């Protein structure tokens, strides 16, 4: 019921938005280069799909994101677990967050090119940077929200600090963990697209950001919108089919959230 409602609402608003867009496009107030009509955007998307370009580029981008996200996730879990166990480590992690979290990855770009070159490693570094800090913040908040009594129960059972983290703190803070992954995913997308638009394709086809950049330099404005539509669609699909399913299988099933 609740889900049906959400989809009806969403479809309704998308249709409203499309009608407004199309009427502005048809009214001729703006040049078709500024506001291309929906048919030309969809046609451009169709052309990019049949020549295979946009599919390969989407897969390339997704591959980079998954790698960056995985590395970011591992670093975040390790750092936040360690800082829950060792007090001195907590200070270090908090200092790192204070320094690194407000730094946009793109601002680090000149340094990253010097250190990692201009290839995929640099893009993955930017993704990891944009993912890891918000994820640690979320995990730490989650760990700290756990009632102390849970920890004490663990200690009474004779668990060592690592076991307390693994068996008590991680499951108990799972909703925060999930929220962290969601934020990380969104951050990774943004980082990836902007990095790709700066780096371009280091050989081969490049990713979605490169697709949009290329459309921009050749002034194919409907193509730019086609690229944006693909990004939005992937965002919606991942949110609806991966995160929501995962939530239902875990925290909702366990009765931790409504």
């Amino acid at each position: 019921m609740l889900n049906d409602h959400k989809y009806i609402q969403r479809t309704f608003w998308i249709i409203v938005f499309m009608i407004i867009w199309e009427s502005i496009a048809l009214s001729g107030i703006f040049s078709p280069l500024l506001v291309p009509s929906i048919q030309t955007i969809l046609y451009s998307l169709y052309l990019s799909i049949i020549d295979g370009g946009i599919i390969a580029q989407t897969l390339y981008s997704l591959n980079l994101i998954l790698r960056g996200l995985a590395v970011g996730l591992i670093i975040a879990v390790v750092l936040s677990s360690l800082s829950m166990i060792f007090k001195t480590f907590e200070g270090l992690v908090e200092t790192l967050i204070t320094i690194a979290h407000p730094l946009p990855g793109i601002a680090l770009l000149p340094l990253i090119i010097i250190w990692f070159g201009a290839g995929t490693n640099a893009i993955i570094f930017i993704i990891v940077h944009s993912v890891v800090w918000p994820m640690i913040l979320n995990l730490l908040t989650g760990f700290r929200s756990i009632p102390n009594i849970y920890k004490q129960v663990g200690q009474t059972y004779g668990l060592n600090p690592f076991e307390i983290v693994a068996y008590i703190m991680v499951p108990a803070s799972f909703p925060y963990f999930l929220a962290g992954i969601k934020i990380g995913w969104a951050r990774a997308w943004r980082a990836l697209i902007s990095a790709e638009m700066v780096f371009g394709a280091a050989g081969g086809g490049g990713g979605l950001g490169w697709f949009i950049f290329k459309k921009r330099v050749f002034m194919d404005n409907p193509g730019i919108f086609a690229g944006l539509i693909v990004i939005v669609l992937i965002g919606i699909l991942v949110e609806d089919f991966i995160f929501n399913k995962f939530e239902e299988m875990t925290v909702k099933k366990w009765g931790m959230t409504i």
Partner: protein
Amino acid sequence: MRKYSSKKIIKILLTGFLIFSLCLCGCVSKSTENTAKYEIKIAEQYGLAYAPISIMKQNKIMEKNLLGVEVSWQQLGNTAAIREAMLSNNLDVGFMAIPPFLIGWDKGMEWKITSGLSASPIGLITYRDDIESIKDFSEDDRIALPQPGSIQHILLSMACEKEFGNAQKYDDILVTMSHPDGMNTLLAKKDITAHFTSPPYIFKELENKGMHQILSGKESMGKDFTFIVGATTQKFHDANPEVYQAFVKSLNEAIDFIQNNPEEAAKILASVYDLPEEEVLNYISQITYENKVRGLKEFAAFLSRNNYISKDVSDLNDILWEDVDYVK
């Protein structure tokens, strides 16, 4: 199964209506700008090939030629940004190479070329001794240039068409880099094999030991061509004939100034670019500043032959304003 009460539907419709009217407000307020008597918005670009624009600004030539004109200089990152600003009428005049101009024209931008600005050395530089011509690149090599569709990319494609009969031969080994990034990466001899660039980067790179040029713009094109042209929107040209004429006159004066007083020009430019005067003088003596436009037909024919643009230029009056000095 009544999910939406009538009250709710009204609410939703109202919200939609509000959003729509907000959009319209945006349209209306946009058309009520521009109250100054004479106004011109020019893209200010740095780089030796754009030197006449800096001279025009520093010597206030435009202001002398048209009293009461308000010149607003806008700084934009790259050619694509300039094109977009001109499309949204935030810019009247922009300077760029011929291929990006033609790509915009092909996509329906209402603009034409006002004048040539400069012709300059441009070439493909590498540090690798084993590479002597474009035939020597392999799949693992990387060529850096500003962006696809840039004059550097088009000149490389022209050379590939001549050499291999395939203009896209090296499209998969390109890396997009700004000129300074490209130069630093080339000098580090790590990620890229070669760099297609223009002054002053081309001069700086060639000063280093072992760096050599394997292809020049002139070799690709087969003749001299204009590197940078000035383009003006139809709207500005038609609505402000006096300002347009004053701009053309001022640009010609700025070009003449550099040709006739290179030392004085170098002095002014040195302070703008924050470079030593002798260095600037040396650079500008290697660049030709002229208002003539060369190579337009050749670029257009190449671009349309290789589907970068959908149509060839059949009538030069479609892309040149009146009185432009075109050299066949």
